[in-house]
């Protein structure tokens, strides 16, 4: 027998707010700052808390000190304009013969404004700058279009960016009109067409069954020859643009050209090398391994030295590459080796069942790679690929050591300009260049993190 209940609650108890240490701003502050420095239960914990308090205070002090120092240098104390055209005297203190108070320490921005065009485009003729602007604008629109989600025709734009855009940029930047004989180009195109038709006939079985096996190669070689010669022909056309040699390029323009060429060339080369290294043919895999390990084992500087000193020795007398092209070849080979290792990592992560499944479907080696393995392997390693790109972008600064004026090289030669000689000259230009590089590299690394999150989300289900 049960005793009757005296009281039965009919409605829910009121919800209590979460404790102050768990929610809201105070909760966040507690968990992230004060929890680690307020445990005084035992001697060890007290020492740890005390250390944490002092260490945090030190870091806050350092952070504020450095940030204020930077803001003061770059904005508050900086000289922003030089209306009287005094040049270096605009950034001199009284002691040095100028008008700024003694002990002044700030950025000398008029110096950067004066060197702006040089830092961006080098000695490129000023009246032809529109050509750089045009290629940059087309390039950035295309790039954003190809990378943005949910825009129509992304794939097509991407293909155009890889094929037509380099041609357009090359013509715009150099002015085209390179010397090549149109008869020679015509002959090559006829050779290409002939090869294609032989390939077609072979594929149709008119030239025997054995030949049919190799007919595809003829087609590929034929189309390759035609494409190469069409490019040569277009580049040789006269667009009525003033020619600008690569010797007149400089600054950020060179940085972008070297980085983009390296990026675009390193990916396909790297894929081929990675596939070669994993090939079952011993000669191919040994050769690819030697190639990769050689370039990865030496510093880029030595590669650039080799490209600029030894390349002229390797080529027949009379063939002369310009300085930029030599450096580009060095950068390409170097970055291809690094890219190959990244891609190999992706290939290793692919399940063996994928290869076997493709084989069971009757796909050939190249079909397996193109349709099954590479799409998975490459998406796997997108973060690694972007990181290699970032490394390559930073490494372009090294070309300044072999006498090519990239952004940093242009900055260095600006520092040597005595007309602007002040104690803050070097710091000002390094700050400026540092900001430019930081924006590019940080942007790329954010994109890589974004892709990583997106991929891990899509892999989760």
């Amino acid at each position, binding site marked *: 027998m049960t005793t009757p209940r005296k009281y039965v609650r009919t409605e829910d108890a009121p919800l209590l707010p979460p404790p102050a240490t768990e929610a809201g701003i105070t909760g966040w502050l507690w968990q992230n*700052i004060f*929890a680690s420095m307020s445990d005084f239960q035992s001697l060890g914990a007290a020492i740890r808390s005390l250390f944490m308090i002092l260490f945090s205070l030190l870091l806050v002090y350092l952070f504020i000190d450095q940030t204020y120092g930077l803001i003061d240098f770059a904005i508050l104390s900086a000289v922003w304009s030089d209306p009287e055209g005094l040049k270096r005297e605009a950034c001199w203190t009284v002691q040095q013969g100028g008008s700024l108070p003694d002990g002044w320490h700030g950025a000398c921005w008029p110096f950067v404004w004066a060197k702006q065009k040089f830092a961006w485009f080098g000695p490129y003729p000023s009246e032809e700058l529109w050509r750089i602007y045009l290629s940059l604008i087309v390039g950035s629109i295309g790039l954003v279009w190809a990378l943005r989600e949910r825009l129509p025709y992304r794939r097509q734009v991407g293909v155009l960016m890889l094929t037509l855009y380099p041609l357009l940029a090359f013509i715009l930047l150099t002015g085209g009109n390179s010397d090549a004989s149109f008869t020679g180009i015509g002959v090559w195109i006829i050779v290409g067409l002939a090869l294609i038709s032989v390939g077609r006939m072979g594929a149709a079985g008119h030239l025997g069954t054995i030949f049919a096996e190799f007919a595809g190669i003829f087609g590929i070689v034929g189309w390759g020859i035609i494409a190469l010669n069409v490019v040569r022909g277009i580049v040789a056309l006269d667009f009525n643009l003033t020619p600008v040699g690569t010797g007149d390029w400089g600054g950020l323009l060179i940085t972008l050209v070297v980085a983009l060429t390296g990026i675009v060339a390193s990916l396909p080369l790297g894929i081929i090398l990675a596939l070669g290294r994993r090939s079952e*043919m011993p000669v*191919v895999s040994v050769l690819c391994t030697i190639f990769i390990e050689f370039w990865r084992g030496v510093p880029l500087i030595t590669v650039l*030295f080799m490209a600029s000193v030894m390349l002229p*020795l390797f080529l027949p*007398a009379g063939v002369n590459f310009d300085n930029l092209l030599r450096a580009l070849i060095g950068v390409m080979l170097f970055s291809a080796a690094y890219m190959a290792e990244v891609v190999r990592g992706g290939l290793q992560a692919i399940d063996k069942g994928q290869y076997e499944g493709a084989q069971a479907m009757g796909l050939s080696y190249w079909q397996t790679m193109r349709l099954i393995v590479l799409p998975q392997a490459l998406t796997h390693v997108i973060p690694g690929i972007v990181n290699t790109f970032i490394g390559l972008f930073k490494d372009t600064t090294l070309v300044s050591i072999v006498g090519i004026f990239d952004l940093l090289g242009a900055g260095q030669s600006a520092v040597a300009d005595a007309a602007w000689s002040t104690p803050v000259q070097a710091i000002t230009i*390094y700050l400026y260049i540092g900001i430019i*590089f930081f924006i590019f590299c940080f942007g790329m690394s954010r994109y890589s993190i974004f892709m990583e999150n997106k991929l891990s989300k899509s892999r989760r289900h």
Partner: protein
Amino acid sequence: MQQLSLKSIIYDARMRGYFYQVFILSCLSFGFWWLIDNTVTNLADRGKTVGFGFLSENAGFQISATLGTWLFDYNVGQSSYLDVYFIGIANTFLVAILGIAGATIIGFTVGIMRLSKNFIVRSFATVYIELLRNIPLLLQLFFWYFAVLRALPSKRDKIEIIPDVAAMNITGLYLPAPIIEPGFIYSVTAFVVAIIITLVMKSWAQKRQFETGQRFPVLWTALGLIFGLTMLTFWITGNPMSWSYPEFKMTGAILRRGFQSGSGMVLVPEMLAVWLALTLYTAAFIAEIVRAGILAVAKGQTEAAYSIGMRPGMTLRLIIIPQALRVIIPPLTSQYLNLTKNSSLAVAIAYPELVSIFAGTALNQVGKEIEMIFMMMMVYLTFSLATAAFMNWFNARVKLVER
């Protein structure tokens, strides 16, 4: 029995493989032959010969005083180009070893800071990493050399770091130099002996703990042994080492003021700049590796360790660090390798390392491009391949433990 016909050969995957390989090899040999032929022709046109005879010729240029010049006793006009080569290698490895030591300490600290529960500590580490990682190393090198170290006081002036012991000016960092006297070798021997005894003691203590469960205070005994034995020998042999302090003159003839040569030792600003830039830049990458390595240890490991009664310190030392190191060490080695290769950037500020003095100054004087660039590349390549071989050995060892 299969019939050997042309068709069966063409359709045989293995035969096709042979065909492709022979084809590739012959293309490659032709390419190499073409390159070598061109090179021979070009060298003949320029009236040059190939050979390593130049190595014994005397080098006629000044190299600023560094570890390498001290080790190989460099004299202009008397030392050979081979000496220059070795000086370059010594200086490269000097800055690489110092850089590796610095980058490891800073990198591990920042990496652990990045995982802190404390927001301030965490974000400070994040800002450090993002800032240093995204700015080219060469720019950082220029910053330290041209913007920071050039702003130091002039040759006739100084700033004290530790009064009378360490000071800096634009010519470098001045530190006391040890002067070693003959009996010093006994102290070194005592130090080595103490370390050997410690190792023996450690394995004995471990064996005893496994058998009886009794622990032995290895750490304190080892410290006492290593310090005590060494200091005792040092004292008995009559203090056979003294310090030469850098001497600075404030008065007297104006050209004689400043640090006096022959006293103390100097670290040239080029080296300081290279060291600072390499250390701080590589530390940012090491920090990310350390963070990833610690995060890779599953949380259950910590909880399991706590549940069998381990204290946090023991958990860290016995459970987390050994597992994290397995993830950390391979990329860490490749960062060390990168740092060593990046030390070649020092050519931009003329620190006398391998690229700068051998492939730079010496190459300009001798003009033996092929031999010299080959010799230079061999140094880096040997080092890289040796490290790679070590890594393969290490990975194989770790894998065995993993089962």
